[in-house]
């Protein structure tokens, strides 16, 4: 009981920051990913080539390095972000290059004939994308986007490396001040298991439902 009371002040505020980081980074990833996917699928080489290139490059760079570039790198060119903002931005950008592919795979599930039909009705390409393609893509991209949220919850631990006071940061503080590792380790990992396992299961079921509905 004493242990729980002594550890709570280290862990609970950290858990809130973890939620803040994962929700923030997820929003960055979901919107930037959609923008990247749309830009990559236009037929304008001036747009598609640089976008594809940066997506491919960032996909190959570890999240931690992306985060360091955003936090330490941008600092030297006069863009000083606090650790929380840097974590949201860095993790979000590193994830967006993957989210972009989920959207593009989602677009592929819509037959070309629908785009043709929209165009033949006199809609502009962007209007077709907005009113015909995206609404139908949503059910397909929701499960991978939720998976990416689960991934970001775990990646939020990286923010401790730039000093954002999230769950692992709080836990490490507890370990360092009390010299006791096990309670913090159990609390952190236990919280992660309790938070992510049901979510992962739910996403899997959702995915099955989306799939069976499209086959029918």
């Amino acid at each position, binding site marked *: 009981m004493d242990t729980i009371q002594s550890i709570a002040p280290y862990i609970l505020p950290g858990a809130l920051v973890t939620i803040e980081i994962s929700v923030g980074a997820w929003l960055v990833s979901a919107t930037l990913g959609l923008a990247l996917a749309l830009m990559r699928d236009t037929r304008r080489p001036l747009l598609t080539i640089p976008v594809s290139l940066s997506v*491919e*490059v960032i*996909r*190959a*760079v*570890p*999240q*931690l*390095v992306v985060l*360091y*570039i955003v936090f*330490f*790198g941008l*600092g*030297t*060119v006069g863009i000083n972000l606090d650790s929380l903002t840097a974590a949201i931005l860095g993790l979000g950008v590193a994830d967006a290059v*993957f989210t972009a*592919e*989920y959207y593009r*795979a*989602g677009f*592929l*599930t819509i*037959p070309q004939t629908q785009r043709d039909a929209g165009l033949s009705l006199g809609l502009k390409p962007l209007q077709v994308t907005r009113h015909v393609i995206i609404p139908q893509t949503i059910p*397909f*991209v929701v*499960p*991978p986007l939720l*998976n*990416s949220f*689960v*991934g970001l919850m*775990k*990646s*939020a*631990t*990286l923010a*401790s*490396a730039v000093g954002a006071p999230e*769950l*692992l940061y709080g*836990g*490490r503080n507890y*370990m360092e001040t009390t010299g006791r*590792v*096990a309670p*913090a*380790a159990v609390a*952190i*990992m236990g919280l*992660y*298991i309790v938070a*992510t*396992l049901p979510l*992962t299961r739910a996403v899997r079921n959702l*995915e099955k439902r989306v*799939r069976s509905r*499209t086959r029918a």
Partner: protein
Amino acid sequence: MSDLGGWLAILIGGMVVTIKLAAATSVLSIALAGLLALMSISPFRVLRVFAGLYVDVFRSIPILALAISVYYGLGASLHQLGITPFGTGVIVLTAIEGAYLAELYRGSLQAIRLAQWDAASSLGMGWASTVRHVILPQALPPAIPITLNMIIAIIKDSSLVSLIAVNEITLVANQLIAETFKPIQIYAVVALLYVALILPLAQVSRWIEAVVTRRLGLQNRPDQEKALQRLSIQAEARAG
């Protein structure tokens, strides 16, 4: 700019450690994942439950949380046992990446239709010989690109153990930055080295995937379904 050569030598030294770290982790993860995947289709309930629990638990734990806990909690004892930070890094990475890979392998094993198990058992084949002669030959080819993608993920995730004193490229880069105060230039070189290592692997993986798909005669499936499958495999591998 004159010290670029010096940096590069130091960073490449770090990259060599990254490659060794990823190689050791990959070999061990493949072994662990293969074992767990076989357990998950075994006729013994205990083994199935154990494999399921292991995969669920270790897929839920962030690599960095496990790394920090092991390093702070067991670092001294591991040191006494003669296990270096590098060894600790390999153990931590394997424990988690093995769980992700096991889940993907289980998927390719279970993609084989149940009727094939029935057919094999009607021929009098036992579990082991069914797995060896019927299931594995069909499950292995699709598992190759999956494994390659996992190796790419392992290379990227190996940067995390820079935070538990493994002197791989990310740690070496940070030490270099502490001396030179040139984060942008040094991280740019680091990023390029990762790209140089990973892009060829990604290309090979795509190519093998295309060959496997063609050989297995999967190309007749409608685009939509193929796209969906890619999407779910990618997303599954990325949940970590």
